[in-house]
């Protein structure tokens, strides 16, 4: 893991109040979601914004968990390197970063979805989300294949980056911003 990456996530996000690197399990995800619920309560964030934060966090961390459990990443030394960081700025906006290692094939699939998402406005994303949910064309054993559209519906901006490790492996870093109206 490139420590510089973590440093960068921490610096541009302001106050980090949750970060985890390593193997993600459902039990850990649910414990961290509980911690986020406490933070939301303590910071007096609206129910709607809180739910957006929880949902984006859950989607990203379950994504990492599913990728690390899949056969795609079969090199054990790369398997557990998921990273998730939640931070907030002085103004109270929330940032959720995730980073994990994915295969070339997954990179291509994810990139297509993200390019499409970046080309749409909020209404377009909502419309596409419902189309995909209805058609079931992205449905696989774990879900509807609409996770990135769910994230896009619930945050204000998405930035992402793929960084090549070797011919078949990439770091996938995604940053979402959730603006809090006060």
């Amino acid at each position, binding site marked *: 893991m490139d420590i510089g990456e973590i440093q960068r996530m921490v610096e541009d996000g302001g106050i980090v109040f949750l970060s985890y690197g390593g193997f993600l399990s459902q039990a850990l995800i649910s414990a961290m979601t509980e911690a986020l619920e406490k933070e939301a309560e303590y910071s007096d964030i609206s129910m709607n914004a809180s739910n957006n934060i929880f949902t984006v966090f859950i989607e990203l961390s379950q994504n990492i*968990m599913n990728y690390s459990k899949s056969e795609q990443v079969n090199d054990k030394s790369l398997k557990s390197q998921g990273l998730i960081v939640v931070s907030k700025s002085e103004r109270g906006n929330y940032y959720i970063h995730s980073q994990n290692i994915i295969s070339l094939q997954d990179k291509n699939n994810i990139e297509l979805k993200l390019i499409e998402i970046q080309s749409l406005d909020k209404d377009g994303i909502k419309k596409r989300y419902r189309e995909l949910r209805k058609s079931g064309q992205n449905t696989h054993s774990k879900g509807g294949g609409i996770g990135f559209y769910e994230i896009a519906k619930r945050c204000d901006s998405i930035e992402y980056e793929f960084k090549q490790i070797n011919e078949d492996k990439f770091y996938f870093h995604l940053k979402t911003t959730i603006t809090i109206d006060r």
Partner: protein
Amino acid sequence: MENLKLEATKYTPEISLDASGTVSLTGKSYPENTFEFYAPMMAWLEEYFAGNAVEKTTINMEIIYFNSSSSKLFFDFFDLLEDNQEDHKIEINWIFDKENESAQEAGEDFIEDFEALNINLVAK
């Protein structure tokens, strides 16, 4: 037909399937294997509508937040209800906190996607 009840966990809702005609889902929904988790509920409903249903069935859904695979599952759940709505009287209450706009919007989307179903938005 036997009732089926599942207690809530930190990431799954309380599920109560009562053969006297009331189905309730209450809580959060972000299981690791969503389709697997809800398979017993879907199987119960299939059996219920295949000759065991009472005159009127009421569905109460109060889901605070959910992951995208649960969203897909709820779509399939409404699809199953729609398949049965011609032969059965089904009323659905989509219950949400009045401050939970995304839950309200989710309910509105289901109303649009399932025009044949009788879905009430219930703010509390």
